[in-house]
Protein backbone atom coordinates (compact mmCIF):
# COMPACT_ATOMS: atom_id res chain seq x y z
CA UNK A 1 0.00 0.00 0.00
CA UNK A 2 1.41 3.35 -1.04
CA UNK A 3 0.16 6.08 1.23
CA UNK A 4 0.75 9.68 0.34
CA UNK A 5 2.73 11.27 3.17
CA UNK A 6 0.82 14.48 2.60
CA UNK A 7 -2.58 12.82 2.89
CA UNK A 8 -3.61 14.48 -0.36
CA UNK A 9 -6.80 13.12 -1.82
CA UNK A 10 -9.79 13.95 -3.93
CA UNK A 11 -13.41 13.36 -3.04
CA UNK A 12 -16.46 13.80 -5.20
CA UNK A 13 -19.92 12.54 -6.02
CA UNK A 14 -20.21 9.95 -8.78
CA UNK A 15 -22.88 7.76 -10.32
CA UNK A 16 -22.56 4.01 -10.38
CA UNK A 17 -24.73 1.13 -11.52
CA UNK A 18 -26.41 -0.59 -8.61
CA UNK A 19 -28.99 -3.29 -8.14
CA UNK A 20 -31.25 -3.91 -11.11
CA UNK A 21 -29.16 -1.66 -13.32
CA UNK A 22 -30.27 1.43 -11.41
CA UNK A 23 -27.99 4.44 -11.58
CA UNK A 24 -27.36 5.59 -8.02
CA UNK A 25 -25.37 8.33 -6.37
CA UNK A 26 -22.16 7.48 -4.51
CA UNK A 27 -19.39 9.32 -2.71
CA UNK A 28 -15.90 8.54 -4.00
CA UNK A 29 -12.66 9.38 -2.18
CA UNK A 30 -9.28 8.57 -3.73
CA UNK A 31 -5.65 9.13 -2.75
CA UNK A 32 -3.50 11.24 -5.01
CA UNK A 33 -1.27 9.47 -7.50
CA UNK A 34 -1.67 6.51 -9.79
CA UNK A 35 -0.22 3.72 -7.68
CA UNK A 36 -2.15 0.47 -7.76
CA UNK A 37 -4.20 -0.12 -4.64
CA UNK A 38 -7.15 -1.88 -3.12
CA UNK A 39 -10.67 -0.53 -2.87
CA UNK A 40 -13.11 -0.20 0.01
CA UNK A 41 -16.90 -0.26 -0.24
CA UNK A 42 -18.22 1.74 2.70
CA UNK A 43 -21.83 0.99 3.68
CA UNK A 44 -23.53 3.84 5.49
CA UNK A 45 -25.72 3.22 8.51
CA UNK A 46 -29.51 3.36 8.59
CA UNK A 47 -29.54 7.06 9.61
CA UNK A 48 -28.14 7.84 6.22
CA UNK A 49 -25.49 8.86 3.74
CA UNK A 50 -24.28 11.49 6.14
CA UNK A 51 -21.32 13.72 6.83
CA UNK A 52 -19.60 11.43 9.40
CA UNK A 53 -19.80 8.52 6.94
CA UNK A 54 -18.25 10.64 4.20
CA UNK A 55 -15.49 11.59 6.64
CA UNK A 56 -14.73 7.88 6.96
CA UNK A 57 -14.53 7.59 3.17
CA UNK A 58 -11.92 10.33 3.11
CA UNK A 59 -10.02 8.59 5.89
CA UNK A 60 -9.80 5.44 3.82
CA UNK A 61 -8.42 7.51 0.95
CA UNK A 62 -5.87 9.02 3.31
CA UNK A 63 -4.96 5.44 4.29
CA UNK A 64 -4.26 4.69 0.65
CA UNK A 65 -7.48 3.08 -0.63
CA UNK A 66 -9.98 4.07 -3.27
CA UNK A 67 -13.21 4.22 -1.29
CA UNK A 68 -16.78 4.45 -2.52
CA UNK A 69 -19.92 4.84 -0.44
CA UNK A 70 -23.17 4.23 -2.34
CA UNK A 71 -26.20 6.26 -1.30
CA UNK A 72 -28.58 3.47 -0.34
CA UNK A 73 -31.54 5.85 -0.23
CA UNK A 74 -30.91 7.48 -3.62
CA UNK A 75 -33.90 5.78 -5.21
CA UNK A 76 -36.37 6.98 -2.60
CA UNK A 77 -35.10 10.51 -2.31
CA UNK A 78 -32.70 11.68 -5.02
CA UNK A 79 -31.11 14.97 -4.11
CA UNK A 80 -32.69 15.14 -0.66
CA UNK A 81 -30.82 16.01 2.53
CA UNK A 82 -29.36 12.79 3.99
CA UNK A 83 -31.54 12.88 7.10
CA UNK A 84 -34.71 13.46 5.07
CA UNK A 85 -33.75 10.66 2.70
CA UNK A 86 -33.13 8.32 5.63
CA UNK A 87 -36.54 9.17 7.07
CA UNK A 88 -38.19 8.26 3.77
CA UNK A 89 -36.17 5.08 3.53
CA UNK A 90 -37.13 4.03 7.02
CA UNK A 91 -40.80 4.81 6.49
CA UNK A 92 -40.71 2.69 3.33
CA UNK A 93 -39.33 -0.33 5.15
CA UNK A 94 -35.57 0.19 4.95
CA UNK A 95 -33.12 -1.21 2.41
CA UNK A 96 -34.07 -4.70 1.16
CA UNK A 97 -31.19 -7.15 1.48
CA UNK A 98 -31.31 -8.11 -2.20
CA UNK A 99 -31.03 -4.47 -3.25
CA UNK A 100 -28.19 -3.85 -0.80
CA UNK A 101 -26.23 -6.76 -2.24
CA UNK A 102 -26.75 -5.44 -5.77
CA UNK A 103 -25.68 -1.94 -4.81
CA UNK A 104 -22.57 -3.22 -3.01
CA UNK A 105 -21.67 -5.38 -6.00
CA UNK A 106 -22.06 -2.35 -8.24
CA UNK A 107 -19.79 -0.36 -5.95
CA UNK A 108 -17.19 -3.15 -5.95
CA UNK A 109 -17.30 -3.33 -9.75
CA UNK A 110 -16.90 0.44 -9.93
CA UNK A 111 -13.77 0.23 -7.76
CA UNK A 112 -12.29 -2.66 -9.73
CA UNK A 113 -12.77 -0.71 -12.96
CA UNK A 114 -10.67 2.21 -11.73
CA UNK A 115 -7.25 2.39 -13.42
CA UNK A 116 -5.59 2.30 -9.99
CA UNK A 117 -7.31 -0.89 -8.88
CA UNK A 118 -5.29 -3.94 -7.92
CA UNK A 119 -8.46 -6.02 -8.16
CA UNK A 120 -8.96 -6.35 -4.40
CA UNK A 121 -12.02 -4.92 -2.69
CA UNK A 122 -13.02 -4.92 0.95
CA UNK A 123 -16.36 -3.98 2.48
CA UNK A 124 -17.01 -2.25 5.80
CA UNK A 125 -20.10 -1.05 7.60
CA UNK A 126 -21.14 0.23 10.98
CA UNK A 127 -24.33 -0.47 12.89
CA UNK A 128 -26.92 -1.67 10.32
CA UNK A 129 -24.05 -1.45 7.83
CA UNK A 130 -22.10 -3.96 9.92
CA UNK A 131 -24.79 -6.56 9.35
CA UNK A 132 -24.89 -5.60 5.68
CA UNK A 133 -21.10 -5.99 5.34
CA UNK A 134 -21.49 -9.59 6.53
CA UNK A 135 -24.42 -10.02 4.15
CA UNK A 136 -22.26 -8.86 1.24
CA UNK A 137 -19.40 -11.15 2.24
CA UNK A 138 -21.85 -14.08 2.23
CA UNK A 139 -23.21 -13.32 -1.23
CA UNK A 140 -20.66 -11.40 -3.27
CA UNK A 141 -17.07 -11.50 -4.43
CA UNK A 142 -15.12 -9.42 -1.92
CA UNK A 143 -11.68 -9.98 -0.43
CA UNK A 144 -12.27 -8.80 3.15
CA UNK A 145 -15.17 -7.65 5.31
CA UNK A 146 -15.38 -5.58 8.48
CA UNK A 147 -18.43 -5.71 10.72
CA UNK A 148 -18.52 -2.88 13.24
CA UNK A 149 -21.20 -3.72 15.81
CA UNK A 150 -23.85 -4.92 13.39
CA UNK A 151 -26.99 -6.16 15.15
CA UNK A 152 -28.95 -9.21 13.98
CA UNK A 153 -26.15 -11.10 12.30
CA UNK A 154 -27.15 -13.64 14.94
CA UNK A 155 -29.94 -13.38 17.49
CA UNK A 156 -33.68 -13.17 17.06
CA UNK A 157 -35.36 -10.34 15.19
CA UNK A 158 -38.56 -9.28 16.99
CA UNK A 159 -41.72 -9.80 14.99
CA UNK A 160 -43.73 -6.94 13.58
CA UNK A 161 -40.90 -4.73 12.38
CA UNK A 162 -41.73 -2.27 9.63
CA UNK A 163 -38.15 -2.80 8.56
CA UNK A 164 -37.87 -6.21 6.95
CA UNK A 165 -34.72 -7.92 8.12
CA UNK A 166 -33.64 -11.39 9.20
CA UNK A 167 -30.57 -12.63 10.96
CA UNK A 168 -27.83 -14.07 8.75
CA UNK A 169 -27.24 -17.40 10.47
CA UNK A 170 -28.41 -19.47 7.49
CA UNK A 171 -26.11 -17.50 5.17
CA UNK A 172 -22.91 -17.75 7.23
CA UNK A 173 -21.82 -21.03 5.59
CA UNK A 174 -21.40 -18.95 2.42
CA UNK A 175 -19.13 -16.37 4.06
CA UNK A 176 -16.44 -16.06 1.43
CA UNK A 177 -14.00 -13.51 2.83
CA UNK A 178 -11.99 -12.99 6.00
CA UNK A 179 -14.09 -11.13 8.57
CA UNK A 180 -12.93 -8.58 11.13
CA UNK A 181 -15.47 -7.86 13.85
CA UNK A 182 -15.25 -4.87 16.21
CA UNK A 183 -17.74 -4.75 19.04
CA UNK A 184 -18.58 -2.80 22.18
CA UNK A 185 -18.48 -4.88 25.34
CA UNK A 186 -21.22 -2.68 26.80
CA UNK A 187 -23.40 -2.88 23.68
CA UNK A 188 -26.75 -4.65 23.84
CA UNK A 189 -27.34 -4.85 20.05
CA UNK A 190 -25.35 -6.90 19.32
CA UNK A 191 -25.00 -8.18 22.86
CA UNK A 192 -21.83 -9.96 24.00
CA UNK A 193 -23.87 -13.20 23.90
CA UNK A 194 -24.83 -12.60 20.27
CA UNK A 195 -21.20 -11.86 19.39
CA UNK A 196 -20.17 -15.07 21.19
CA UNK A 197 -22.79 -16.99 19.19
CA UNK A 198 -21.38 -15.59 15.94
CA UNK A 199 -17.87 -16.51 17.06
CA UNK A 200 -19.00 -20.06 17.84
CA UNK A 201 -20.75 -20.49 14.49
CA UNK A 202 -17.80 -19.17 12.49
CA UNK A 203 -15.42 -21.41 14.42
CA UNK A 204 -17.57 -24.46 13.70
CA UNK A 205 -17.68 -23.49 10.03
CA UNK A 206 -13.90 -23.09 9.91
CA UNK A 207 -14.14 -19.49 8.71
CA UNK A 208 -11.30 -16.96 8.78
CA UNK A 209 -12.28 -14.31 11.30
CA UNK A 210 -10.87 -12.01 13.96
CA UNK A 211 -13.02 -10.37 16.65
CA UNK A 212 -12.19 -7.64 19.15
CA UNK A 213 -14.52 -6.37 21.86
CA UNK A 214 -13.82 -3.22 23.83
CA UNK A 215 -14.82 -3.46 27.47
CA UNK A 216 -15.88 0.10 28.14
CA UNK A 217 -17.42 0.79 24.76
CA UNK A 218 -21.10 0.95 24.02
CA UNK A 219 -22.85 0.84 20.69
CA UNK A 220 -21.70 3.12 17.92
CA UNK A 221 -18.35 3.94 19.44
CA UNK A 222 -16.88 5.04 16.09
CA UNK A 223 -19.54 7.75 15.65
CA UNK A 224 -17.72 11.06 15.96
CA UNK A 225 -20.88 13.08 16.59
CA UNK A 226 -22.45 11.10 19.42
CA UNK A 227 -21.79 10.64 23.12
CA UNK A 228 -20.68 7.00 22.84
CA UNK A 229 -17.54 7.97 20.92
CA UNK A 230 -14.83 6.04 22.71
CA UNK A 231 -11.25 7.12 22.12
CA UNK A 232 -9.41 3.93 23.19
CA UNK A 233 -11.78 1.71 21.19
CA UNK A 234 -11.63 3.99 18.15
CA UNK A 235 -7.86 4.21 18.20
CA UNK A 236 -7.40 0.46 18.47
CA UNK A 237 -10.25 -0.19 16.06
CA UNK A 238 -8.78 1.91 13.28
CA UNK A 239 -5.41 0.20 13.80
CA UNK A 240 -7.12 -3.20 13.47
CA UNK A 241 -8.87 -2.08 10.30
CA UNK A 242 -5.66 -0.71 8.84
CA UNK A 243 -3.81 -3.94 9.56
CA UNK A 244 -6.68 -6.12 8.32
CA UNK A 245 -7.14 -4.31 5.03
CA UNK A 246 -3.36 -4.03 4.69
CA UNK A 247 -3.19 -7.82 4.90
CA UNK A 248 -6.08 -8.70 2.61
CA UNK A 249 -6.23 -5.88 0.07
CA UNK A 250 -2.59 -5.80 -0.96
CA UNK A 251 -2.15 -6.24 -4.70
Amino acid sequence: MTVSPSGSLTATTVTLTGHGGDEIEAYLARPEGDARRGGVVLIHHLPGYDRPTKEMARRFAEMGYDCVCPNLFHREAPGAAPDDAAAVGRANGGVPDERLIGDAEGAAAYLRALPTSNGKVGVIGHCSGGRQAVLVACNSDVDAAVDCYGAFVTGTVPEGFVLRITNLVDQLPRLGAPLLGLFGGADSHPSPAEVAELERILTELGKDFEFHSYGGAGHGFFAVDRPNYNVPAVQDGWERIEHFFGTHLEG
Partner: protein
Amino acid sequence: MCTYSTVKAEIDGSAKGPGSSWFHVTDVTVYFDHPVHAMAEHTLNIDFAAPDRGPSARVALELTADSARALVTAIQDALAAVPAEMAV
Protein backbone atom coordinates in the same frame (compact mmCIF):
# COMPACT_ATOMS: atom_id res chain seq x y z
CA MET B 1 -27.83 -0.07 17.51
CA CYS B 2 -29.87 1.15 14.64
CA THR B 3 -32.89 -0.35 16.34
CA TYR B 4 -34.95 -1.06 13.22
CA SER B 5 -38.11 -0.79 15.33
CA THR B 6 -40.45 1.59 13.56
CA VAL B 7 -44.10 2.45 14.10
CA LYS B 8 -46.16 4.21 11.45
CA ALA B 9 -49.56 5.85 11.50
CA GLU B 10 -51.72 7.89 9.19
CA ILE B 11 -52.64 11.29 10.59
CA ASP B 12 -54.54 14.38 9.54
CA GLY B 13 -53.21 17.77 10.54
CA SER B 14 -50.71 20.48 9.74
CA ALA B 15 -47.13 21.24 10.66
CA LYS B 16 -44.91 24.26 10.27
CA GLY B 17 -41.65 23.20 8.80
CA PRO B 18 -39.13 23.93 6.08
CA GLY B 19 -39.06 27.57 5.05
CA SER B 20 -41.44 28.46 7.91
CA SER B 21 -44.31 27.26 5.78
CA TRP B 22 -47.31 25.33 6.97
CA PHE B 23 -48.17 22.12 5.19
CA HIS B 24 -50.68 19.33 5.54
CA VAL B 25 -49.18 16.21 7.12
CA THR B 26 -50.56 12.77 6.39
CA ASP B 27 -48.05 10.36 7.87
CA VAL B 28 -46.12 9.98 11.11
CA THR B 29 -43.19 7.65 11.74
CA VAL B 30 -42.05 6.96 15.29
CA TYR B 31 -38.87 5.10 16.19
CA PHE B 32 -36.17 4.86 18.82
CA ASP B 33 -32.82 5.20 17.15
CA HIS B 34 -29.74 7.34 16.69
CA PRO B 35 -30.51 11.04 16.46
CA VAL B 36 -29.04 13.37 13.88
CA HIS B 37 -28.69 16.29 16.26
CA ALA B 38 -29.80 15.57 19.85
CA MET B 39 -27.11 14.83 22.42
CA ALA B 40 -28.00 11.25 23.25
CA GLU B 41 -26.95 7.92 21.78
CA HIS B 42 -30.57 7.02 21.06
CA THR B 43 -33.67 9.16 21.04
CA LEU B 44 -37.38 8.79 20.41
CA ASN B 45 -37.72 10.21 16.93
CA ILE B 46 -40.90 11.46 15.32
CA ASP B 47 -41.20 12.38 11.66
CA PHE B 48 -44.33 14.24 10.60
CA ALA B 49 -44.36 13.98 6.84
CA ALA B 50 -46.27 14.58 3.65
CA PRO B 51 -44.79 12.00 1.26
CA ASP B 52 -46.60 13.41 -1.75
CA ARG B 53 -44.67 16.65 -1.27
CA GLY B 54 -41.26 14.96 -1.25
CA PRO B 55 -38.63 14.03 1.34
CA SER B 56 -38.04 17.56 2.63
CA ALA B 57 -41.69 18.01 3.63
CA ARG B 58 -40.92 16.76 7.09
CA VAL B 59 -40.94 18.05 10.64
CA ALA B 60 -38.59 15.97 12.75
CA LEU B 61 -38.33 15.67 16.53
CA GLU B 62 -35.58 13.89 18.46
CA LEU B 63 -36.47 13.54 22.16
CA THR B 64 -34.74 11.83 25.03
CA ALA B 65 -36.80 8.93 26.32
CA ASP B 66 -37.85 10.90 29.42
CA SER B 67 -38.85 13.84 27.24
CA ALA B 68 -40.90 11.59 24.99
CA ARG B 69 -42.74 10.20 28.01
CA ALA B 70 -43.35 13.74 29.25
CA LEU B 71 -44.75 14.61 25.83
CA VAL B 72 -47.08 11.60 25.89
CA THR B 73 -48.30 12.60 29.34
CA ALA B 74 -48.82 16.20 28.26
CA ILE B 75 -50.81 15.14 25.20
CA GLN B 76 -52.95 12.78 27.26
CA ASP B 77 -53.53 15.45 29.90
CA ALA B 78 -54.48 17.98 27.26
CA LEU B 79 -56.92 15.58 25.64
CA ALA B 80 -58.37 14.60 29.03
CA ALA B 81 -58.99 18.28 29.82
CA VAL B 82 -61.17 18.80 26.77
CA PRO B 83 -64.71 19.69 27.88
CA ALA B 84 -67.18 16.96 27.08
CA GLU B 85 -69.17 19.18 24.72
CA MET B 86 -66.00 19.79 22.64
CA ALA B 87 -64.77 16.21 22.52
CA VAL B 88 -64.77 14.52 19.11
